[in-house]
């Protein structure tokens, strides 16, 4: 159960090898979390993280989940809830960055599947279970890229925008159900996924994102930008006329 101060006791992670997700779990375990289910495509890669986290005294389970295999999602999600009872947080962290640049045209359809269709397909059965238990938080890792497409990664931005819009709409629908939805929009996060890129201004590390997620859960925030200043940066960028926006070195 989530408590009055926003501490939670159990979490299901979709995309268990995500560095951000693991940083979130580490923080939650240091607080009250005693049950963690990591769902990952590559179980072997999630195991070391699980082993480290297990030493903290919590119950850990790693299960296989391929977000591109839509027909498998309901069984994986239902099994996690059936085995562990109530799950207070479902964290959607699966995703890929794609190659960017001119390769985007080739990657776009695949990115939509990995970052939008797949995660949404997982969210549907997860939200059914959260509604049935009458409480819980769905946390969706989106990106500032969802707010305005940039030439360098518009395919990625488009996929995150799809997931982001779906999650926000769902959050509105779920008001009064005891279930809330939080959309997290980090800027540039320095992780394995972005190692090959030059860090952008206002870049953060995975743990800073994790801190913002845990804080957002306490506040029951609907949208969290990381760093917080990104909210205003993106507000300005969204309002810029295209002629100026296209000339920006971003």
């Amino acid at each position, binding site marked *: *159960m*989530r*408590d*009055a*101060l*926003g*501490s939670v*006791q*159990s979490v299901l992670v979709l995309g268990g090898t995500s560095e951000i997700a693991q940083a979130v779990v580490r923080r939650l375990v240091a*607080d*009250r979390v*005693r*049950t963690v289910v990591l769902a990952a495509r590559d179980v072997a890669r999630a195991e070391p993280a699980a082993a480290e986290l297990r030493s903290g005294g919590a119950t850990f389970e790693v299960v296989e989940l391929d977000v591109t295999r839509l027909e498998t999602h309901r069984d994986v999600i239902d099994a996690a809830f059936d085995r*562990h*009872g*109530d799950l207070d947080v479902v964290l959607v962290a699966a995703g890929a960055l794609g190659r960017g640049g001119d390769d985007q045209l080739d990657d776009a359809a695949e990115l939509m599947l990995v970052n939008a269709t797949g995660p949404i397909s997982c969210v549907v059965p997860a939200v059914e279970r959260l*509604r*049935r*238990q*009458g*409480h819980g938080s769905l946390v969706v890792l989106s990106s500032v890229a969802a707010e305005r497409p940039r030439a360098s990664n518009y395919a990625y931005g488009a996929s995150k925008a799809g997931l982001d819009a779906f999650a926000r709409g769902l959050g509105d629908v779920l008001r*009064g*159900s*005891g*279930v809330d939805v939080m959309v997290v929009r980090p800027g540039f996060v320095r992780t394995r996924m972005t190692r090959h890129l030059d860090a952008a201004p206002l870049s953060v590390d995975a743990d800073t994102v994790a801190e913002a997620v845990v804080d957002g859960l*306490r*506040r*029951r925030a609907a949208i969290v930008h990381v760093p917080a200043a990104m909210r205003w940066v993106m507000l300005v960028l969204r309002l810029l006329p295209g002629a100026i926006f296209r000339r920006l070195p971003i």
Partner: protein
Amino acid sequence: VTAAPALLSGWGRTAATRATLVRPASVDALREALLAVDGRGAVARGLGRAYGDAAQNGGGTVLGLDRLDRLERFDADAGEVVAEAGLSLERLLRTVVPLGFFVAVTPGTRHVTVGGAIAADVHGKNHHRDGSFSRHVRWLELLTPDGRVRRLEPSDPLFGATAGGMGLTGVITRAALRLLPIRTGDMRVTTERGRDLDEVVALLEAGDREARYSVAWVDCLAGGDRLGRGVVMLGDHAEPGDRDAAGPPAFAPASRLGIPVQAPAKLLNTWTARAFNAVWFAKAPRRRREHRESLGAFFHPLDGVRDWNRLYGRTGFVQYQFVVPFDRADVLRSTLERLGRERIGSFLAVLKRFGPGTGLLSFPMPGWTLAMDIPANVPGLPGVLDALDEQVAGAGGRVYLAKDSRASGRLLGRMYPELDRWRALQRECDPGGVMRSDLARRLGLTGEPAA
């Protein structure tokens, strides 16, 4: 029977969950509703005055008892009433005060039900003398998940598991309560300031020997040599011959002000708390003074403001109440010091001495109890309260389950040494685990893994 989905939270307005709220109008309908619950179980709810998640059951059934509110019998000779569990102390008082009786124990609000008062085994300002609510229950009737209604007297072990059992042994349906005869509707109140914690403690110790009712309000934001300064209030029911000629018993609380809308979440903060506490202290008489107060003003001052919990805004508040044995009064000081250091302010911190306890999970035990209302959005609060919990448990004390909304189940066994006995009795009358609440889930109260 009416049944409708409802998003329910406690008085602190935190961590709401959705349940099916069923409001039966008879015990038969209640039994039917209890026998029909699904795997997510059920718990009874009265007027929702528990601060945390005690009367919530996410995804399951919540049995609202507000329609089971008949006062079935009044026996003036025995000074006793038989009431259905959903009857509020407010309505009970309106009936019995003009007849010359008061409830033997009342908490700081009269908007609680008889069933809730037993399930939380509530206490009042007379605990040092009269014990908690359940001590004045001659018998109670408990609907257990098998559909039986059992009449339990205090000698029955299940009575001890039900009084203070947070609704997890079954649903209390009716009870026989012993009342306190009174001869006027007034209180004779003595008010005195204490300049620091030692003085407040000494005044309460002395006051408990002379007065039936005693309580101190403590300014938890005063530091240095004023740490723990406060105002001690002692009270007794006035007699007809007293000074200022008390009138016949009457109970007519003034019409209530209301808080119509939710306040901004940051309205009650350290600064407003500091100002409020300073004013409260300053308005108390400098020297010991005796005066008269109505029953309502003395016992239920906050009931004068309807929905005052909305003042804490969207994020709500927690009430932190603990008790420590008499020889560990040092914990009071270190708690106030810690909160002062962290600049965590409470609008009303209430200090009181308890006498002996009652039920297996009842909160009161001989010692000092301190209660504080704190906005839930105060940064750093979770860690500070966790540290205070450790300190309380280490001192042989406990936190109050009816107020709790954030403790960890880890310390439960240390705080409540009779927990295993209670669990055994609970399991005996609810082997299928039908009685469930968010509180029970969060703390792992009935022994299932905390989930």
